[in-house]
């Protein structure tokens, strides 16, 4: 069965191999709605908005906000600073990890109910269950085309970050990045998402050090063309 729903300013696409009860779909939608209510900066009543404009101290925030801040800081450390939960103006913005965290929770929920298939949200895709799935990577220079078609096999999640679609999505101390798009295959969607963002922020000059230290595969599009890590799936010749 297929189901698409709007959340977090984008659209979630759920492809399941068989039928599932409507209550399970509702539970999945609620996973996203709950995170959005707590972490959205587009909702003035969210704790993150209250922290952002000084109405709430971070130390007084709900436990899940503090936990997710810790997770984002951990990714800041693991990417040697290239992934950051802080906007340039200082406002705490956890949207960089929350969407992926929600995908991870939803995938776990679906898998524990015996579901299998794929969950994609705004360009991030995670496998549910153990099946093998072919994923298309959008060509950033022509979004109607597929640039690569890796298979989710051992790696269970894929995320793409770009410098073109949302100019404000990637903050880099370098200013403008020279990477158009980075796609990362990883064991889990949070890793894939955080590393894809970090690669774009790091640019071609610094992303090598990042990749050397992290268990991921990556496909990068820059003005120079395509580049890939040794483990990125190659077409059999």
């Amino acid at each position: 069965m297929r189901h698409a729903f709007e959340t977090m300013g984008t659209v979630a696409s759920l492809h399941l191999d068989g039928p599932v009860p409507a209550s399970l779909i509702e539970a999945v939608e609620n996973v996203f709605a709950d995170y959005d209510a707590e972490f959205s900066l587009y909702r003035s009543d969210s704790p993150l908005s209250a922290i952002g404009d000084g109405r709430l101290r971070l130390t007084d925030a709900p436990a899940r906000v503090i936990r997710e801040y810790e997770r984002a800081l951990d990714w800041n450390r693991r990417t040697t600073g290239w992934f950051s939960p802080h906007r340039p103006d200082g406002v705490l913005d956890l949207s960089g990890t929350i969407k992926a965290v929600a995908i991870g929770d939803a995938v776990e929920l679906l898998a524990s109910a015996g579901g299998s298939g794929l969950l994609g949200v705004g360009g991030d895709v995670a496998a549910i269950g153990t099946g093998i799935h072919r994923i298309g990577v959008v060509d950033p220079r022509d979004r109607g085309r597929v640039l690569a078609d890796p298979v989710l096999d051992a790696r269970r999640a894929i995320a793409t970050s770009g410098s073109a679609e949302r100019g404000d999505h990637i903050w880099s101390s370098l200013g403008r990045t020279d990477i158009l798009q980075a796609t990362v295959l990883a064991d889990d969607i949070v890793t894939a998402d955080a590393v894809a963002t970090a690669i774009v922020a790091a640019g071609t000059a610094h992303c090598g050090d990042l990749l050397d230290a992290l268990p991921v595969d990556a496909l990068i599009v820059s003005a120079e063309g395509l580049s890939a890590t040794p483990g990125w799936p190659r077409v059999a010749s």
Partner: protein
Amino acid sequence: MSARATVGGAVVSGAILALGWIAGAAMPAATTATVATGTGTSGSSSGSASGSTGSSSSGSGSASSGTGSSATSGSTTATTGATDGTYTGSSVSTRFGDVQVQVTISGGAITDVTAVHLTDHDGKSVQISNRAAPILAQEVLSAQSANVQMVSGATYTSRAYLESLQSALDQAGF
């Protein structure tokens, strides 16, 4: 249906990309340089390779002493006049296993870099770096690309979704 057509078109753009890569392809020398700087730890192994220059070529001491300072400051620079020969660095332990590199210098320039020891702790061959290297477009796009089940791309807005490839896939039902 339209998604299927555009996916097929990507093969054409892949071919154009491939030509672009060949036109701007890195020279072999540049490729070996990439290997030399490919990992953070290989820097230290090339350092030890120049160290072994001093010890192993003690017989030609006068020649090597003349270039001694420049050899240590930059053994990969062609203009320093490094002594020709093949040098083997000491084994360096990396995240991927033990790595040992052999460098061949001819006419004062590095002409070859070979990994002489690349094993992990199980004794299997391993990659020495996880860095991204240039790749041809057709190497990452298979003949099955029309059968992709979902699409990964930079985050789209709800409005952009309607024009996206993912939207086409969701509606097409394949």
